[in-house]
């Protein structure tokens, strides 16, 4: 089955929960169509190079999928229907370079996942205001 990479830009006014739901809906769409998600990158909030629909920012997602050749058409159709998607682009993977992490993720400082942000240690309680 051919591989595709699909980028979509979510509406920045959505809440995190709504965005999560949006991503989930496409994930399940892919798996329901006998496709496979090879990778999902969340680029997060990015400034758009030009305003789209009055929005200056967008939430970028990149899906790397393996699916039937007929599926991208359906996927794009769904993108178009959904007004929470500002833009989308689906292209066929033509080079292995596309399978690795995208330049945008590479440019990021390494995730701080391994070293979780130290829990904010409660500073010693301020001395009780003297009477």
């Amino acid at each position, binding site marked *: 089955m051919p591989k595709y990479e699909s980028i979509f830009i979510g509406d920045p006014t959505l809440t995190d929960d709504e965005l999560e739901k949006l991503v989930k809906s496409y994930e399940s769409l892919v798996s329901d169509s006998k496709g496979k998600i090879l990778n999902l990158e969340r680029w997060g909030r990015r400034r758009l190079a030009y305003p789209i629909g009055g929005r200056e920012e967008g939430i970028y997602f990149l899906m790397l999928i393996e699916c039937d050749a007929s599926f991208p058409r359906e996927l794009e159709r769904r993108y178009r229907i959904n007004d929470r998607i500002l833009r989308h682009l689906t292209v066929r993977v033509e*080079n292995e370079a*596309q399978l690795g992490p995208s330049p945008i993720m590479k440019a990021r400082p390494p995730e701080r996942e391994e070293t979780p942000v130290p829990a904010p240690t409660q500073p010693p309680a301020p001395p009780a205001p003297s009477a």
Partner: protein
Amino acid sequence: MPRKRPTSGPRGRKKGFKRKFLFRKKKFCKFCDEKIKYIDYKDVRLLQAFTPERSKIFPRRISGTCSRHQRKLMVAIKRARTIALIPFTAD
């Protein structure tokens, strides 16, 4: 046998003209040089280097990019514009 070109001889005709271009740097295709086969439309920094100032595509005659890579570059730039990674125009 190929005709031999005179390799030496008086070349004083357009001396001034020649001198002017003596130190021009030879242009080369950046992508051939670095053996880049696939130009990624997501590589914003790379594409920006080829869309200076007004965000127009840097012409081949100036950048020195070879025709094959210029074509690939063009596709990449246009894709990147579609998803608002790089602008169509500056203002």
